[in-house]
């Protein structure tokens, strides 16, 4: 039994425990306990990974390989490299914060936490999977609870948003599926058993025509989840309607599934197609980056602002993924982590502020800093991280992306990089706009003066996230080295392909 199994088992046990309890309060306590354990497991995993990595040069660690469907050669094959480890930790942190951020859910709390944690178990499963089948399985598990969560506990046009989100994501997964079976049947060009094993497929050379056929399916499929223009429109509506914890998990983690999948499956397994067809998606991602940022500038609803900013940031992840060198890849992973934490923080804070003011319209608020200093300061910190201020993880990630992408010898790549760079200014515009209008200035409504600052559980939630942002931002080297080590062989593969 690999240690990694715990990441799926603990959420499942938590879900079971919630199932067999009664009472509104127990559900959240159990979830909090379960997810705290999960967080501890996640942090422990980093140390275990670093320790193991020193002695074990295998690409994937903590592997466990169980034959599942023998005739199709489907395995339950799990293992992690640094990318997965960081994604797992990200998920641990976000779900931990998410549980505390939804402490006040009082409408069907058991169902809420069950769905939430089921979702997280899907995400965990996705990140530990090394077999495309199980990966896909967990992917779908992660998507569907979203519908229920948004549909039942959401706000605004929740039914519409939930349906739109689910359908668009499932269309994405439809594309992925085609790609996956295509990969499967090309995984043994020299005879032998077909396989879904990521590592095995990476070793074979898939015929180039097939690669060119499959790459758009896979990249676009994962791109839908990664909010690739023009398939991002589920994101604003979905985020706006989702309850706090769901927005957090969704923007924080689920969108990362897209980036992670695009990298691990579309790029790594189809390197030649990625170099040949990458330009199409580079254009799209560049548009995403700029377009999302511009889109965020004029929004009035806090969640829309963050949704568009997510489009911009996630666009950057995909852009970096397409840049085909180690630094950019590293930046992509860091950006995923950074954006995950940051977005989770934003949505948590928005939820908390909304819970007090009952509005998300920035122009209906003002002077929140005076009333809720803790939440406001956290928001400002999140904002600074978002606009890529040094000392926060966002900067580390973006600089890796920009520097890495700019090392690409192709002029086209560099021009796109420069265009994307412009987003940092636009980001500053909308972040400061929000801060200026909402947090600073005079209190606009008399009743806002009587609101309270964060409760203990909200402080835990926001504090964890802010701390993570700072830790990564201040001492990025260990993380970027850890990830970078895992990226070396992949980057070399691309180097070999390019030349």
């Amino acid at each position, binding site marked *: 039994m690999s240690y990694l199994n715990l990441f799926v088992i603990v959420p499942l046990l938590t879900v079971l425990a919630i199932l067999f309890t009664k009472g509104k309060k127990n559900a959240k306590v159990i979830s909090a306990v379960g997810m705290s354990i999960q967080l501890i497991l996640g942090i422990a995993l980093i140390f275990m990974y670093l320790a193991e990595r020193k002695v074990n040069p295998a690409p994937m660690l903590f592997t466990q390989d169980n034959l599942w469907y023998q005739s199709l050669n489907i395995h339950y094959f799990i293992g992690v490299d640094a990318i997965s480890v960081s994604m797992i930790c990200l998920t641990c942190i976000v779900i931990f914060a998410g549980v505390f951020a939804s402490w006040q859910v009082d409408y069907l709390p058991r169902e809420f936490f069950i769905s939430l944690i089921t979702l997280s178990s899907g995400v965990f499963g996705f990140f530990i999977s090394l077999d495309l089948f199980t990966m896909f399985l967990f992917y779908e598990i992660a998507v569907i609870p979203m519908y229920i969560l948004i549909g039942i506990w959401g706000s605004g046009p929740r039914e519409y948003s939930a349906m*739109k989100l689910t*359908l*668009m994501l499932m269309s994405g997964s439809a594309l992925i599926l085609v790609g996956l079976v295509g990969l499967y049947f090309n995984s043994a060009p020299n005879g032998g058993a077909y396989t879904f094993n990521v590592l095995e497929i990476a070793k074979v050379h898939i015929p180039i025509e097939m690669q060119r056929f499959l790459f758009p399916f896979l990249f676009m499929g994962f791109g839908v989840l990664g909010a690739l*223009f*023009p398939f*991002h*429109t*589920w994101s*604003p*509506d979905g985020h706006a309607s989702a309850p706090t914890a769901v927005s957090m998990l969704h923007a924080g983690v689920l969108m990362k599934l897209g980036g992670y999948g695009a990298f691990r499956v579309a790029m790594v397994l189809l390197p030649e197609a990625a170099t040949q067809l990458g330009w199409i998606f580079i254009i799209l991602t560049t548009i995403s980056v700029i*377009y999302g940022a*511009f*889109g965020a*500038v*004029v*929004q009035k609803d806090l969640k829309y602002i963050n949704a*568009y900013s997510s489009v911009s940031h996630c666009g950057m992840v995909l852009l970096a993924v397409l840049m085909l060198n*180690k*630094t950019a890849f590293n930046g992509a992973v860091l950006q995923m982590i950074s954006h995950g934490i940051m977005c989770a923080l934003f949505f948590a804070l928005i939820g908390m502020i909304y819970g007090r003011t009952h509005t998300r319209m920035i122009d209906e608020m003002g*002077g929140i*800093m*005076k009333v809720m200093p803790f939440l406001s300061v956290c928001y400002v910190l999140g904002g*600074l991280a978002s*606009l*890529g*201020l*040094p*000392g926060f993880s966002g*900067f*580390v990630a973006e*600089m*890796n992306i*920009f*520097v*890495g992408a*700019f*090392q690409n010898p192709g002029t086209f790549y*560099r021009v796109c*990089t*420069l265009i994307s*760079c*412009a987003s*940092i*200014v636009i980001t*500053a*515009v909308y972040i*400061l*706009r929000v801060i*200026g209008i909402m*947090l*600073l*200035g*005079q209190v606009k409504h008399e009743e806002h003066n009587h609101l309270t600052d964060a409760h203990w559980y909200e402080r835990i939630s926001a504090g964890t996230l802010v701390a993570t942002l700072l830790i990564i931002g201040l001492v*990025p*080297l260990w993380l*970027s*080295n850890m990830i*970078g080590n895992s990226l070396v062989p992949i980057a070399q593969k691309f180097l070999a392909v390019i030349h």
Partner: protein
Amino acid sequence: MIDFSYAIWIPLVPFLVFAVLGLFGHYLKPRISGLLGTAGLLAAFILSLFVAYKYFFVVGKIDASGVVTDTYQKIIAFNQVWMHFTDKLHVDMGVLLDPISVMMLVVITTVSLMVHIYSIGYMHGEKGFERFFACLSLFSFSMLGLVIATNIFQMYIFWELVGVSSYSLISFYYWKDSAVSAGKKAFIVTRFADLGFLIGILLLSYTTGTFDFVTLTDINGPAIIQGSGIMFMGLSTMTWSLIFVFMGGAGKSAMFPLHIWLPDAMEGPTPVSALIHAATMVVAGVYLVARLFPIYAFSATAGLNVVAYVGGISSLLAAIIACTQFDIKRVLAYSTMSQIGYMMLALGVSGYGEEQGLGYMASMFHLFTHAMFKALLFLGAGAVIHAVHSNDMREMGGLRKFLPITHITFLIACLTIAGIPPFSAFWSKDEILTAAFHHDKILFAIEFFVAGLTAFYMFRLYFNVFWGKHIHYHHEPHESPFVMTGPLIFLAIASIFTGFIPFHSLVTSDGKEMASHLNLLIAGPSVLIGLIGIVTAYFLYKKETAIPDKVASSFKIFYRWAYNKFYFDELYLFVAKKIIFKRISTPVAWFDRHVVDGTMNSVSWVTNYISGSIKGFQSGQVQQYGFAFIMGAILLAVVFIYLWIH
């Protein structure tokens, strides 16, 4: 070679203070936090002085092998990899000591310490006292980190941090909308400039493969050797990258046309203006150009010309505007801009090494003296504002009776800036003019004229505030406490005497000592024009007269333009509101909601519509079902028999 690694504590101490104040500040008494902040800076100040002494007078010229040379060495006192991009490109956090960085350490810690002390009095009783000191400490940390940066990326990092701490201090009175929007403006404009900086860095690192200053500025290094490189629009990549880098510097240093944030930034508390927007942060651009000076000088002379002209235009523009403003802080702000223009120009007209490097030296010299007297001016203005609770010089007058110490120190500062010997700025300005004279006569003419203007507007201010009309104040203005006047006195003394520091032997473009002598042909007229400016101001503003209004009305259009800052704010506002918001963002948002999202929605709509329109097939009539059945079979048969088989 001696171990300078303790120099790392110079920025770290303020950082620790910031961390303590930021996390626990609201549990401390305000006074304690103030003292804590000041103590931190004091430590940094002492350390800096010690480092400066060691560097300039003891070990600065000893090279790595221990041989005493005639050149100040670049000493990397501390270096730690902070982030790894590629094997060649990595961001280090470290301490680079060379003449300019050591000089900057002294400048920053001195001014910062003075401002800290001053603030204890000035900010007394303000809401958010501990926040103020936390931000000040953060700023000091960032600024110190910036100047000691060993590589351009470290500089960029701290550059950004400086920007954000500036933002937080400008918006310190966050409940005031004007403060909030001023902070926002400052941040966004500089952020835009930083984009240029970033692009510059990317280009630079791509061509040279390094971030490291020592390698970059090595005259045998890759940056200078491979300088020419690929051409783009007639200029080499290196030139372009340095122009972009300069864009960052121009933004931070409020150079035309990115200067618009600086006057607004005066919304922050006055000590902040003194520290950030007069003495330290705004000269970061100058420092940046100076830092990369060898590359400019060897590989990007076109870039250097840009620097020179931007500096010249800025100084002229700012001086003209300054003559028309009534807000004393804004006058000072424009004067700052004007003075920084001087420094930029000096760098722009400079060459590398020996006598060619006069402009470089002059620029650094002026930077140093300017920091002292401009801080003094601002702190003095702060004392005035503290006393009368207004910024508008029209509401002031005759304050010399009420604020004697402030008056004297302010006068000293005004004389300094006007370039009257023997005050410090006389020396530095004179050298700038000399350098300009040798290089470009047009620039010289501009600077010469600006020198006169400077004297005029400063004394306009001085007379308006301390002499002029008598105003009945609501409550009698009174002199500030010693914590505030103390720094004034200290800075006044510094303003007087720093002119005698032998800069030509300490801070030069190539680190070697250079000959310097007073050029009377230039010094004479410049003093003269300064005096003319003072005298004019004396006649116009010593007593309340109608002459200024007459003069203003006779240059009506010009005056209105200058008064309205040549409408740059409006231009930017137009760009921001009309173009970015109205022409780009709103359409983008609309496009997203209606076109992109509309497409997705219309897919589902079409599906539903088709679904609705074909429901008639399910008519409930079994014969129609049969018809479909038969037709289906026949059509399939036709397709297969006549199309598929053939």
